[in-house]
């Protein structure tokens, strides 16, 4: 069965969706991702959907759900690289994905995740302010 790979990069997880999502694939991703967050105790998830050309309300909702679930597991989610057509479709479907953080590309998404990282987690080398 085909799966979407989840890559670990330090404290973050990187998911690149390169194929057209169908419902089962989205649900599998949801399962895999929550499991991976909990296993690696990740602090952030970056989902790159720049290759995704078609979305429906189910995929949109799943993206929102994944983000909400990640938040419950104490990980920030950033969705990056949404295409204009996809954005328009989601808006027309009435899905604003209000809980999801977004960025233009992977680079900016990573930056956003770094900013989301609580500072107390960094090794306190000289935090004697």
């Amino acid at each position, binding site marked *: 069965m085909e799966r979407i790979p989840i890559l670990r990069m330090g404290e973050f997880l990187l998911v690149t969706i390169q194929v057209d999502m169908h419902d089962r694939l989205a649900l599998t991703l949801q399962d895999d991702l929550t499991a991976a967050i909990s296993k690696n105790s990740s602090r952030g998830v970056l989902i790159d959907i720049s290759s995704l050309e078609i979305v429906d309300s189910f995929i949109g909702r799943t993206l929102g759900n994944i983000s909400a679930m990640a938040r419950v597991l104490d990980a920030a989610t950033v969705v990056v690289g*949404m295409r*204009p057509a996809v*954005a328009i479709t989601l808006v027309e479907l009435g899905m604003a994905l209000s809980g999801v953080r977004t960025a233009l590309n992977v680079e900016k998404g990573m930056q956003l995740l770094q900013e989301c990282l609580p500072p107390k987690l960094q090794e306190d080398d000289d935090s004697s302010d």
Partner: protein
Amino acid sequence: MITSRSRLPEFLQKYGSDLHNEWVREQLSIISRHGVIRENELRDETRRFLALLQETLQKASVEEFSTGAWDNMRQLLSEISRSRGLQGFSPTETALFVLSLKRPLCERLKKEFSNDAQALYNETWVATELLEKLALHTSEAHLKAREEVISRQQQDLLELSTPVVKLWEGILVLPMIGTLDSARTQVVMESLLQRIVETGSDVAIIDITGVPTVDTLVAQHLLKTVTAARLMGADCIISGIRPQIAQTIVHLGVELGDVTTKSNISDAFALALRQRGLTVCKQKSTSAPKP
């Protein structure tokens, strides 16, 4: 119902030139005050019209108006009414071109068939029906010509009015001008999102100084655009909100949510610069001599 053969073609042939003169006189009395159309032109048009009408009537009956036999006639009429439309004639005046033929024609028919009531009725009926069909066609062609002009202008407006300007590295401005409807918003939204991708901008300023009124529909369109840009990872600032518009928005109960709004574009630009961590500072005086 009307019998198969009408005597109208022969009648037209017989009295063609008389009818022509009377018709032109009739028309001139109606439209002369406009002075837009010259008598020669009118004479020429009416002559062509009558000749073609007679020719067509010999081949086909009035009932076959929508068939191919009447194609030339319809084409001539369309041509005439299109040129009238471009000259700024009203639909009524354009339709009068055909309808003004009615009086001369009916009077001629009355004289011709004064001792045959049945024939007079038949021929009048055919003539009336014919003129009505021609007049309807004229009106339709006139409207169509006008509509073409309108839709072309709309298209022009659509293309002219949605420039997306790059103001700074990573900052786009979309100055909106004119009323926003669904079709325009779609174009605006698409071009804004496209430019966001192309330039990799993360702040977009939507300036609505040129939008005359904001009602719930326009506000909804704006919010859609903002949401779509946010989904792609760009922040939107709405600027150029005039006092009246602010009042309308509040009175209508439109919820702008967490969209940043600024009263003018320079405030919005300053905010955008700040969001990107940029500051503007005055250059140190260059006139001072350097050591």
